[in-house]
């Protein structure tokens, strides 16, 4: 059964039909990639799934549960984490603190226990730190552990953002252009990490990406969208050879 | 050894509003005190002791007033407070002054709480706002056949006092107290409030606002074409600046106060001389604040003289209770006695005519 299914999703901003009737299913354990020209509505789909936007139409079902009306701050708890196209980190905190916020949904102590530092709060802290250190190891972030975000190189920030998403221990992770701004070498690393997330952590990945080398390397299935509408769905190779996709998105030289 | 008194110095303190909304009272008052003290000091001081006036600014903030009082009492070791401004500020400061036996001499607020407390530590200078307004309102009701009185006031103890005076006087005279409006010190337009009072048929309106809004109220009434209303202010509004507003906007305003306006009494030599001194000093015609400062400082100096070289709280109290003289500058009569720590008691009713305050009647209270 599919982990996430999106049915006939649509959202309009004034006259702009940013997403206009998109349906797809993401199977548990796969890497599902959305590609499409700029402004096709890819990030908007992410914003709809993470409930930042209210769809004009359609339905979003995650793990059998209709989340079309779930408040945005309850999404993480259900097991959906995301990153952002433009990097949205807590700039005045360290990498460690950023990741700890990632574990916010796992806490059990109430604020009163926190203020009094009761045992449950302390236990929470230990667990959170344990989980976070594992992720730091997983993504090779040890060198940056106690550095402030403001001042870290772009590439590192991209990784920190993924780490923070992982810290919420999700089942589905949404990655918005994970490789943009990365060098070829770093993009290759990113491919490995996505692989590892899928294989070692058993995550399902929904990704938006323009770098075809990464898309080909990791995707199980690819959906091409244009102007808010689906264009093609299939394996990476199938989609990349679709003449309509080439015309609208890839260009001849790709 | 008496606190604040050494062989060559007597230290007097005050917490004032030098930088806030009531600076118009404090600043000239301090100036006038300093002027007199300097004069006294230059003439050899009081029984060989120089007067030192330490002024702290609280900017009309209670916390800072409490701090200032703490400093003046516990650090500067003052002998007495003179002319400290603000009701809650004084009430807070009394808490540190009373246990240390520091008398409050002529605080710059006529709230009635200023006289409540240990008798030997409380002195007020002139008739309260309450007495002033009652007397003047009575005079107007009587003389002009007024049947409906009203009040506009800031809801502070100052305002409340005047409001109460108006209500009480209306009741005593059997006329109708018809309406009231309250205001914030910062208000700048009174069209709505005046419309309401006009609707209620008010003939006499007591006004307990600070000076600037008082001017605006009278001006607005004129602009509304409401010419037959009589406005009455307390001593707090009995200020030269109001008479001087250009365009004759404030013509006809009444005041009931514990002292007389200076301008009309310039032929009195003492007044002329003092005004000249103050003009020299500040470049400005001395106003209400300066007058209050001068007369309070004058009274204190007199009492200290009388108390003699052996200055203690007891000798000071005794001296204060003997004060009995005509104050030429304030134009009133300062008189205290055992059990009577309220100074001058007459009420002067004045009206603005041709850009100056003109005395229309004098009422003796008590």
């Amino acid at each position, binding site marked *: 059964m599919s982990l996430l299914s999106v049915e006939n999703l649509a959202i309009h901003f004034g006259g702009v039909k940013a997403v206009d009737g998109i349906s797809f299913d993401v199977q548990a354990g796969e890497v599902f990639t959305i590609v499409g020209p700029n402004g096709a509505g890819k*990030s908007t789909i992410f*914003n709809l799934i993470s409930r*930042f936007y209210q769809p004009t139409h359609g339905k979003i079902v995650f793990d059998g549960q209709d989340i079309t009306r779930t408040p945005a701050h309850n999404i993480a708890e259900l097991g959906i984490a995301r990153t*952002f*196209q*433009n990097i*949205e980190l807590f700039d005045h905190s360290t990498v460690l603190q950023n990741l700890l916020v990632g574990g916010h949904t796992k806490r059990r102590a109430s604020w009163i226990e926190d203020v009094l530092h009761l045992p449950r709060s302390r236990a929470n802290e230990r667990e959170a730190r344990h989980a976070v250190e594992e992720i730091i190891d997983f993504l090779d972030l040890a060198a940056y552990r106690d550095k402030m975000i403001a001042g870290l190189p772009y590439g590192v920030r991209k990784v920190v953002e993924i780490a923070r998403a992982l810290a919420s221990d999700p089942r589905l992770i949404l990655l918005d252009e994970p490789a943009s701004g990365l060098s070829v070498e770093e993009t290759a690393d990113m491919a490995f990490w996505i692989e590892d997330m899928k294989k070692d952590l058993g995550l399902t990945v929904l990704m938006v990406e323009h770098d075809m080398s990464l898309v080909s390397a990791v995707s199980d299935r690819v959906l091409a969208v244009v102007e808010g509408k689906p264009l093609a769905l299939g394996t990476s190779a199938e989609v990349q050879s679709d003449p309509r996709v080439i015309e609208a998105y890839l260009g001849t030289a790709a | 050894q008496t606190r604040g008194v050494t062989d060559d110095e007597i230290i007097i303190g005050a917490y004032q509003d030098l*930088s*806030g*909304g009531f*600076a*118009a009272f*404090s*600043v*000239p008052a301090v100036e006038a005190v300093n002027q007199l003290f300097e004069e006294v000091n230059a003439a050899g001081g009081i029984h060989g002791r120089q007067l030192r006036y330490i002024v702290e600014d609280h900017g009309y903030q209670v916390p800072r007033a409490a701090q200032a009082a703490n400093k003046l009492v516990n650090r500067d070791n003052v002998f007495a407070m003179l002319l400290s401004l603000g009701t809650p500020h004084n009430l807070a400061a009394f808490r540190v002054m009373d246990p240390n036996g520091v008398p409050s001499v002529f605080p710059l607020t006529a709230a009635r709480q200023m006289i409540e407390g240990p008798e030997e530590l409380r002195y007020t200078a002139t008739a309260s706002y309450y007495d002033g307004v009652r007397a003047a309102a009575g005079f107007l009701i009587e003389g002009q056949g007024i049947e409906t009185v009203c009040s506009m006031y800031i*809801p502070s103890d100052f305002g409340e006092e005047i409001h109460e005076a108006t209500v009480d006087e209306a009741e005593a005279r059997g006329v109708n107290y018809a309406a*009231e*409006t*309250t*205001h*914030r*010190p*910062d*208000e*700048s*337009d*009174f*069209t*709505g*409030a005046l*419309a*309401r009072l006009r*609707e209620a048929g008010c003939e006499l309106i007591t006004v307990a606002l600070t*000076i*600037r*809004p008082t*001017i*605006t109220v009278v*001006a*607005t009434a*004129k*602009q*509304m*074409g409401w010419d037959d209303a009589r406005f009455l202010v307390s001593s707090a509004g009995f*200020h030269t*600046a109001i008479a*001087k*507003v*250009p*365009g*004759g*906007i404030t013509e006809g305003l009444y005041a009931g106060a514990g002292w007389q306006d200076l301008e009309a009494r310039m032929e009195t030599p003492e007044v002329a001389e003092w005004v000249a001194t103050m003009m020299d000093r*500040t470049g*400005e015609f001395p*106003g209400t604040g300066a007058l209050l400062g001068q007369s309070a400082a004058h009274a204190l100096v007199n009492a200290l003289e009388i108390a003699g070289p052996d200055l203690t709280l007891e000798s000071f109290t005794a001296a204060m209770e003997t004060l009995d003289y005509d104050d030429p500058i304030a134009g009133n009569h300062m008189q205290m006695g055992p059990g009577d720590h309220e100074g001058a008691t007459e009420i002067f009713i004045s009206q603005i005519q041709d850009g100056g305050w003109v005395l229309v009647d004098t009422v003796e209270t008590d």
Partner: protein
Amino acid sequence: MDALQLLIGGVANGCIYGLVALGFVLIYKASEAVNFAQGDMLMLGAFLGIAFINGDRADLPFLLGLIAASLCLGALAYALDRFVLRAIFGQPQFAMVILTIALGFILRFAAGTFWGYDPVSLETPFAGEILRLGSLTLAVADLIIILATGALTFTLWLFFGRTRLGVAMQASSQNQMAAYYMGIPVKRVNSIVWGLSGVVSAIAGVLFAAKGAVEPSVGLLFGIKAFAAAVIGGFGSLPGALLGGLLIGVIEQVAARYAPSGYSQIAPYALMLLVLILRPGGLFAQIAQKKV
């Protein structure tokens, strides 16, 4: 008639709130900084007006004095930005809030030291002049205030929306670095807008002084009410500032007339809170959810 009379009084007073609010909004529009000394600039403008116009001072004709006061305050505000505020260019907004609060203290001190703490009034050619239209009485001062404010708001609105410099100012407030990359001298633009705001404040101050009297402390609380006006209109909108000012001016009078005394003073702020609860960005909001 009573209501109409009330409305006119409220509108005239609201115009002055609107003018001060306009001063805030100008600066905000060009730098997203909020000038907490704006009310004190009004006070300074009023004193300058008095210094130039009153018979016992410079004794200039009213219009000339108004212009002189505007120029003076404009220059002063320009200099303030150039020599004080520029030192914190690029620092968080909060720094500006603190800095202007402190500046307000200093301006009040300066005014008190120069002009004393007693209230003074402005001599105007139209002091006490009244126009009677049937049972309606109109103060000439009010009429002049309403006309001047309307004209000023319209001009500034055109300036910001239509001129190159105006759009450049908006750009500077949205992204200082990018504005620099467009060749906009952001710091100078900031100083210019401060100067402009000084001119507006001077006009507001003179009109304010024409209605009553001024003393050094009038600015602080008047400024806060003008803030409320700007917020109601949506900080950053010029017509909004005027509208906010008018609403506050009118509600104040209406509340003073009809609400129980003691409650009426709350009305302007209650109105502001109400507007904010319904529309968190004010009536003409220019805030947006971040696009991610």
